[in-house]
């Protein structure tokens, strides 16, 4: 069962051994941005989740940051 880690501080994710990593927006809002309006923010969130799903459907040999 593959897992993708959406996290802001990528080196920590790598060090604890996550194999599929997607860099997030910021620590208090990894999948959002309060500076954007609601519609734009949801588009941003959608893009990140799509990247995460893409990571889940990609075969990898080693730890990979997507």
């Amino acid at each position, binding site marked *: *069962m*593959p*897992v*993708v*880690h*959406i*996290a*802001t*501080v990528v*080196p*920590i*994710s790598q*060090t*604890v*051994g*996550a*194999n*599929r990593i997607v860099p*997030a927006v*910021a*620590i*208090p*809002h*990894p*999948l*959002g941005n*309060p500076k954007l309006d609601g519609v734009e*923010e*949801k588009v941003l*969130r*959608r893009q*990140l*989740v799509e990247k*995460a*799903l893409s990571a*889940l*459907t*990609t*075969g*990898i*040999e*080693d*730890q*990979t940051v997507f």
Partner: protein
Amino acid sequence: MTIKIVHYINQFFGQKGGEEAANLPIELVNGPVGPGGALQALLAGKGEIVKTIICGDSYFNENEGVACMGIREILEDIKPDLLVAGPAFNAGRYGMACGKVGEVANALGIATISGMYNENPGYELYKNYAYMVPTSNSAAGMRQALPAMAKLITSWAEKAGKLGTPQEEGYMPRGLRVNVFSEERGARRAVDMLISKLAGEPFKTEYEMPVFDRVEPQPPVIDLSKATIALVTSGGVVPKGNPDRIESSSASRFGEYSIAGLQALTCESHETAHGGYDPVACNRDPNRVLPVDVLRDMEREGKIGKLHDLYYATVGNGTSVANAKAYGHAIAMHLLNAGVSAAILTST
């Protein structure tokens, strides 16, 4: 001779505020601030904190390039004899920042002395670049941490930077190999160790085996449109009211919560229990940490087969490695038994 010290601390110890001040950029102040005052007193004239760098933990970790440029400029300008960072205890972002500024200082030929809990990721990642004193896992240990750092700083000053081994000086192993001359040659020492080992007697290895906690990458999902995707988070998103009372730090458990029938999380339905980041953005819109809204859209569109009805949450703030591992294992078993195809784990 009094050595010239620059002290790096975060927004909290710099008396700027808590998580709401975590995005403050670099501020340079004259003299010691916060714990720097006590540290300087403990140095009893051996060292003087001429400047203090205060920087928000989130700011540093989210803007590492810019922050490091600023740190480099400050160090090039002031030319301290030594950089002191922290102590960071178990604060992950703070430890990472302390380690990273150590790396910046190292590139300028300036040594760094720091202090943090041995599970702090800043130790694992940056131990090559600083002498880090082991501390307890919370600021309650400040009264032990500062004297320990002062002792190491004093030793460093008295020995003109030529510190002895971690065991002699009281810093955590840096993973750096140092050549020394030995009385006995290597073959003899190795055979002596083997003889002790075979006799069941204690022996001291010269090279500890590193522990790599790695997992084989799992094969990818073949068809997302048929897959069940589960959400897991260490960001502490829980139903409003935190019914299981998951702790804001050092969580003793994880929760399993239903999102069946929920199209999105809202400020009325959910909140964060996590005490290690500014909760405002998440509490206003919890989808910012647990993206239920987007995954529901994708489920409706047929892009994914199903969003799993249950999600799992804990608080990743100061969670011990042992507990985090146990929760991960338990959650994985739940997901596997439920026939979940893949999981998205979000962290703050």
